[in-house]
């Protein structure tokens, strides 16, 4: 009878149970691995032979067939090594297990080195989650992944660093002892703060108001400014004022990073919202996700956080257009020959660009004609620009102009406001699927939640006349006004909210003032 060992594989951001079946048959010595494994799975046979040998066991000199069930889903990764090795040892009766029932309720993860050591692998968190949901009681993981695996509650996680240790534990020769290193004491959720704080941003008070609005209402934002005026500095600090992630959100993010192999600090959940800033020559696939194994891209890595596109006008048109659908849907499906994965990507888009080709629009040294400026700005297509609720100009700050006591608002202070506004929105949109914040309101919902009195309508009418805004900005202004009101805890949209919202689209104002046909 074949030996069956539990292991796991990843599909998208979720793991699923894989039964590793090992059978030895009389015949010419060979190892065959079936079950649609990729190269890293197939190569396991060589690793197995060497590591078993090194660990003091014998590799059976008969025909070995290994099956990864379910056999109709493509699998990849080197973490099946441990389960294959154990199955082989059981099958060749080199080890005996006292309690076979125990084996059925245990899962195994780990790559083997040729020396018989167990090495870390990626995607441990979602696979341990899969173990729990499959009803397993225990899971054995590489010691290096222990902390990450322990983030999942409700399943016993054991970490080993050598193959023979696992064997000794299974055959009840040795009790499992966990010797935590002193500095690796389970930290009580205090993730490393990046230290970026809005306190450092001085002299851009008006802009700050709109950044808070963007963070509070989930509005996407575009900053326009000359080189060196602080666009990146501001963007980098936006995650620090976003509301803290719920445990569920943290787990989602940590899972994504686990799959992407980016979990550097592998002993705790990621608690800070991610900030991703891909360079402008990033390929379409690195943004959206892709590759032969359909791995997550930048937009998925920015899930629950901020995606910052610096110099957005320099991104290729194709890459930018790719973002349109995922921004609407909050998820992206990537289809490749090998697999089709669906990844979440609910992010706040913050973009920055120069105002004109030379970068110094409005300054005396800028000689870009209005046509040239417009041509430059049109590199960002209408649909993408349409998704930017806020477009603000940034002016370089002259520190000599600032009063001595000038100090920015601290991120903690701002975050408090943001949290308040988010709480208001949560209760407003409770029970409405797919809508979490003001930015996501549909026209019908705007009508319901944002009643406007005559005075405000009059201001809107006048502003449209004078500022030459296009008609499709109408809903954006109302949404922004809603967030401004929420920030101050006002039930009604007041005149001041609408008035402030009307200043949020600088690029469009520029456009109206240009001397072009």
């Amino acid at each position: 009878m074949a030996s069956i060992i539990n292991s796991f594989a990843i599909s998208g951001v979720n793991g699923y149970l894989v039964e590793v079946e090992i059978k030895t048959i009389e015949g010419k010595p060979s190892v065959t691995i079936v079950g649609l494994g990729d190269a890293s799975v197939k190569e396991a046979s060589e690793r197995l032979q060497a590591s078993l040998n090194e660990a003091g066991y014998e590799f059976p000199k008969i025909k070995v067939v290994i099956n990864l069930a379910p056999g109709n889903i493509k699998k990849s990764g080197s973490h099946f090594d441990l389960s294959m090795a154990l199955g082989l040892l059981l099958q060749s009766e080199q080890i005996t297990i006292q309690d076979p029932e125990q084996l059925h309720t245990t899962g195994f993860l780990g790559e083997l080195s040729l020396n018989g050591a167990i090495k870390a692998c990626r995607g441990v968190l979602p696979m341990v989650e899969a173990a729990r949901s499959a009803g397993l009681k225990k899971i054995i993981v590489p010691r290096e992944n222990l902390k990450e695996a322990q983030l999942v509650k409700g399943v016993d996680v054991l970490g080993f660093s050598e193959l023979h240790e696992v064997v000794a534990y299974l055959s009840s020769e040795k009790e499992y002892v966990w010797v935590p290193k002193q500095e690796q004491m389970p930290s009580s959720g205090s993730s490393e703060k990046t230290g970026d704080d809005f306190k450092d941003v001085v002299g851009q008070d008006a802009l700050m108001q709109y950044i808070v609005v963007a963070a509070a209402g989930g509005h996407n934002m575009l900053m326009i400014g000359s080189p060196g005026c602080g666009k990146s500095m501001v963007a980098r600090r936006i995650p620090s004022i976003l509301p803290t992630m719920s445990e569920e959100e943290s787990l989602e993010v940590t899972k994504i990073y686990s799959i992407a192999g980016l979990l550097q600090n592998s002993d705790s959940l990621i608690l800070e919202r991610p900030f991703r800033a891909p360079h402008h020559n990033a390929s379409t696939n690195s943004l959206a996700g892709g590759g032969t194994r359909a791995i997550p891209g930048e937009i998925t890595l920015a899930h629950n956080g901020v995606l910052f596109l610096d110099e957005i006008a320099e991104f290729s048109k194709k890459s930018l257009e790719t973002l349109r659908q995922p921004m609407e849907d909050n998820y992206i499906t990537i289809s490749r020959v090998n697999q089709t994965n669906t990844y979440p990507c609910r992010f706040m888009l913050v973009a920055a660009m120069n105002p004109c080709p030379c970068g110094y629009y409005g300054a005396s040294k800028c000689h870009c004609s209005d046509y040239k400026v417009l041509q430059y700005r049109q590199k960002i297509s209408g649909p993408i620009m349409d998704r930017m609720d806020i477009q603000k100009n940034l002016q370089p700050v002259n520190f000599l102009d600032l009063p001595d006591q000038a100090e920015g608002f601290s991120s903690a202070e701002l975050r408090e406001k943001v949290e308040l506004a988010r709480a208001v929105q949560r209760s407003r949109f409770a029970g409405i699927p797919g809508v979490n914040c003001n930015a996501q309101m549909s026209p019908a919902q705007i009508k319901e939640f944002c009643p406007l009195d005559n005075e405000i309508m009059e201001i809107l009418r006048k502003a449209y006349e004078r500022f030459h805004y296009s008609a499709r900005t109408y809903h954006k202004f109302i949404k922004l006004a809603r967030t401004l009101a929420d920030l101050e805890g006002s039930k009604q949209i007041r005149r001041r909210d609408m008035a402030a919202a009307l200043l949020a689209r600088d690029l469009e104002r520029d456009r109206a003032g240009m001397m072009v046909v």
Partner: protein
Amino acid sequence: MSLHFLWLSLQKRIGPVAIKKLLEHFSSPRDIYEADYEELIRVKGIGKTTAALLVKSRSLQEAAAVLERCQKHNIKILTCLDAGYPEALHKIPRAPALLYYSGTFPRSGGVVLVGSRKCSVYGKKVACEAASYLAERDVPVISGMAAGIDGYVHTACLKAGGYTMAFLGGGVDTVYPSEHWQLREEIASAGTLVSCFPPGTPAHPGRFPSRNFLMAAWADTLLLVEAGKQSGALLTANYGIALGKKVMAVPGSIYSRQSVGTNALLNRGVAAYCNPKQLTANELSLSGIEEKGSLLINAGAEQIIGDHKKEENLPKNASCDQGPGLLPGTSRKRSSVENKILQLLENSSLSMDQLALHFKNDRLSFLEALTMLEIDGLLERLPGGMISLAKS
């Protein structure tokens, strides 16, 4: 007939002067085409080489191709034999004998407004003001469709509903610079695109001087808005002076790189442009210039004029500095925040963030006041987002 004229204009060694001489001698372009060597050298000014070349290149293939292209792109041809050929060009032997145009039939005369490609905000303002002034008076506004001043001139004229002509340094169907493709379409539908180069000829700096000459020859008046040291616009002005046209230059700051050329022109005795009225006045010394000139010339009258000016301006100023009173055209009272903003902007333009520094405690009130002031038209946004008090 135009096919043979086209053939003649496409000949490499024969310029407008020679063409006109030939036309004087022969009754039609067809006769020139069919003339033999002996007949040709009998024409005064046609040498042996030219005559031989004409006989040798007796083929209508190229001309037919150009004509086909013209028909395809709806480009029309205007020759010096046509009735609509401007009188001004007849007087100038060097003026091209054959022109390509697209759009409405070219109106003769008009005012040339040219300037540097890299212009300043000042230059843009002057150019737009002059162009719309002319547009309102239905004077043809002529320029070269280059970037900078030229582009603004055409745009301002079109926006004011005027008639504009663009003289191109390439074929009528080419776009240069590329960002002007939309402007080109607009000019083609509401104005005229003119070129002395056959369609398809790419724009090239080497061709700009002949375009500039044509512009200067076509117009009655030329205004040089801004020009650097070696600007092509300066060349246009020089052609204008040489052809005896009325030429003016816009005075600029002596420190501005864009005004080096215009100021140099003024030094040479070209009239200084101070008022759009000068563009349409028959004599240079007419109304527009006099108003401002009298201030200088009649220094003794300064006192009186000064007082008069003050009185004139008084009501305007009063409406701006009234303090917490009623806004013009509205029944709204101005808030203290609004007054403070107006006060801060009195002497300089500031960015929104610079203004916000003064309203640390209530930013929302500040933003509200700013919007209300802008809606009421009391503030102006400069390119790049700076805010200043609205003029007038």
